[in-house]
């Protein structure tokens, strides 16, 4: 059913029309074979070799390599398995390879090619996988968690991952779900901290806590020790000699007090310090660095973007159209006062000249247009540019008002276009009541 072909010392497993490159140890000689195979199987029992292979593959500069489906044959108990696509299992793996390879083809070269930074790679990786980035608890990581894929780019600097991912969250590429909050040593960013109660005066850990007893009848207050009767286990008040029988009736314990055996200081609130197990730095709680751990997931917008189904123009913000559509939908469902409505105003430029003109000129023209439009729309969200046309949403007004705005816009637009150009270009515009859409 499948066969392993040995070719130039490289083993290839073909199964269900998929070629798996079998790697036992990384070497640069593999490069050629890598591009021609659809997937990789790591077949070593050496953890170091295993890790090296994973690292080399996932941090490879070629998109076709770092996104490649990677399976392993032996469970080597390496934390690096989270960067792979799992244990090799004939049918299951085949299915996965097909899906992943399909998606890799959909990753648009154009959007990400020049900008080959880590976050972009991550987005591509997530897009071709389950779209989820779930950190996993791990004691060997300094922050106690390891991140699939992106973790390989931040070995020993895991605390920086969250910051990097925050950029993607801010521009709506990733959604987050709170998972954990962890404290790190201020000095070395390690999470292996030993918390200890100490004396606020001399920092000694040699403390003793004592319950304080309040005898109601005579208002005597003292550490429990002073109430202990040496002959029996009864409590007896040293001030008035009465026996304390019943907590809540004869006496209570309103608090407890620490005594420091080193400097004899008394206090109620001990100072908690966090000693770092790696660098011995003693952190006060205030100086600990808090890092929030999230589960991440690609947003719908990011998925569309990655597939190129999301219309983007380089000079405009990417999500404008989507928001505009939502606003438009909202306006259509809205109930207006009598005579009022919202209007969709479209202006487009057509003409052969537009294809010949310098793109800088066109862009600056639209930039100026946007300035003009700003005076007529409530906010920037009601303005969207798609190629050489713009759409404006005029909110809640009378038809006459909308028509006045329409005329002013066209007038201003004509002023912006210089005469020699104007004659070669046609301006089309349309004003539509949203109710009629």
């Amino acid at each position, binding site marked *: 059913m499948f066969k392993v072909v040995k070719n130039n010392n490289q083993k290839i497993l073909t199964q269900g029309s998929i070629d798996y490159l079998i790697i036992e140890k990384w070497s640069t000689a593999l490069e050629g074979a890598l591009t021609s195979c659809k997937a990789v199987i790591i077949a070593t029992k050496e953890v170091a070799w295993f890790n090296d292979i994973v690292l080399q593959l996932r941090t490879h500069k070629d998109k076709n390599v770092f996104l490649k489906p990677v399976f392993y044959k032996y469970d080597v108990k390496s934390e690096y398995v989270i960067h792979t696509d799992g244990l090799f299992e004939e049918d299951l793996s085949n299915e996965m390879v097909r899906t992943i390879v399909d998606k890799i083809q959909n990753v648009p070269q154009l959007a990400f090619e020049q900008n080959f930074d880590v976050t972009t790679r991550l987005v591509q990786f997530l897009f071709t996988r389950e779209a989820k980035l779930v950190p996993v608890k791990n004691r060997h990581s300094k922050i106690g968690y390891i991140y699939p894929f992106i973790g390989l780019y931040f070995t020993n600097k895991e605390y920086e991952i969250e910051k990097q991912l925050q950029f993607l969250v801010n521009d709506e590429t990733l959604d987050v779900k709170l998972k954990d909050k962890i404290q790190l040593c201020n000095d070395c960013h390690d999470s292996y901290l030993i918390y200890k109660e100490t004396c*606020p005066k001399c920092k000694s850990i040699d403390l003793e806590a004592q319950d*304080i007893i*309040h005898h*109601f*009848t*005579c*208002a*005597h*207050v*003292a*550490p429990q020790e002073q109430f202990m009767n040496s002959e029996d286990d009864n409590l007896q008040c040293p*001030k*008035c000699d009465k026996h304390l029988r019943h907590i*809540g*009736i*004869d006496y*209570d314990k*309103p*608090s407890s*007090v620490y005594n420091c055996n080193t400097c004899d200081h*008394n*206090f*109620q*609130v001990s100072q908690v310090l966090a000693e770092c197990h790696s660098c011995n730095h003693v952190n006060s709680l205030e100086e600990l660095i808090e890092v929030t751990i999230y589960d991440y997931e690609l947003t719908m917008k990011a998925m569309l973007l990655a597939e190129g189904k999301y219309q983007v123009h380089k000079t405009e913000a990417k999500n404008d159209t989507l928001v505009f559509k939502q606003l438009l939908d909202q306006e259509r469902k809205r109930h207006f006062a009598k005579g009022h409505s919202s209007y969709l105003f479209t202006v487009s430029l057509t003409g052969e000249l537009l294809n010949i003109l310098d793109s800088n000129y066109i862009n600056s023209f639209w930039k100026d247009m946007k300035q003009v439009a700003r005076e007529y729309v409530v906010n920037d969200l009601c303005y969207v540019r798609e190629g050489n046309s713009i759409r404006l949403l005029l909110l809640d007004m009378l038809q006459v008002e909308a028509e006045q705005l329409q005329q002013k816009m066209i007038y201003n637009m004509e002023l912006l276009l210089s005469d020699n150009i104007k004659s070669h270009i046609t301006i089309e515009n349309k004003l539509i009541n949203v109710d009629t859409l």
Partner: protein
Amino acid sequence: MNHLIPEYLNYWFEVGIWKFIRIFWYFVLFEFTRYIIIDYIVYGIFYLNRKKRQDRWDLAKQKFRLENPLVSIIIPGKNEGKHLYKLTKSLSEQTYTNFELIIVDDGSDDDTPIIGENLKKHGLIDLFLRNDQRGGKASAANFALQFCKGKYIVHLDADCSFDRDAIENVVIPFYIDENIGAVGGNVKVRNYKSSLCAKLQAIEYLKTVSVGRIVTSYLGIYKIISGAFGAFRSDVISSIGGWDIGPGLDGDITVKIRKSGYRVYFEPTAVCLTNAPEKFKVLTKQRLRWDKSIIRFRVRKHKDVYFPNANFKWSTFFSLAENVFYNVILDVLWWIYIIDICINYSGSLQFVIPMNITLYFVMSYVQMCSIYMFSERREEEKYLWKYVAFMTFYTGMYLRIVRTIAYYKEFFFKRSFEDPWNPYKSSRLAKEHGL
């Protein structure tokens, strides 16, 4: 109207001295002798001895400075957080610096725990103790006592502020006479300009605290070390087991110290300023509480001092007896006096009442003169002179009525045990044990 005044004057000219004393027996026997004659005699003695007293003071101060003892300042209270920062400020200005500051937060339900821990962190206080459950002022003070390391303990209220030499001056008397077990500070009203109610209290404090206590202290019958500002010898206070439950625990601990054989001293130069209630409604509540404690502690709890026994001391006897006499018995006598006048002089009330008012009016100003002579901040207190006219009504009527109500309630119903000032758990047991 015109013929009324000559008729009024004529009446008093014809009455004669013995009848005058008969009609105004209350004033002549009690008020005039106690508050005018004795005050002026003591002032006279003070004036004559001033050189000797100054020498004694200087010597004591020298000994004190040489020894430089640690003083533990304790401040128990509930919801006093808002005053704490100002208080630490006031204390950091003190001429005497060898003190530790211990704050006890007795079950506050506001930001006090946060403020306290914060001040401690910044080194402004040495120890911040907190009871999650309120135990009452006495237990809070006793809690602090457990951790005091000083030779002397100064007890303060959080809402007070202090003259720069107040802490020093309140401790120096311990070096005048080693038999002194406790020293009371001079409490004055800080907000005396804020309302008429506060002004009248300011005058009252000058009379009863500043001058009154110089006199009682001199006579050896000084009876109450104000909780707002008092100093105690550590060994004495531990030997008597600290404070017992209040209200009125200030007076109570003073009696306990007297009973165990120590002198109690008043130091007029150790000045502490406190805020007095600005409204009569608040003042009435405060006074009801104070006055009830007289019955509870002077009459009931410490009744043994009135009987000859092993610990019997004349000065303690007089101290309490004076207090009880001038408060409780005179209060009753005053009502008897009213009844006496109403029955026997019902026809001459139009003469008797104005004369009474005149007498008290004149006495108020005569007393103010003695206050002026004793005072160490005369200029500021001149402001109060014009309000002295109201004192006749303030002490003569208002305070008397409040006092009567308090005594009546406490004497017959032991109302102070129900005072929300103490938690129920403590009051219930105290009542059972007759404390």
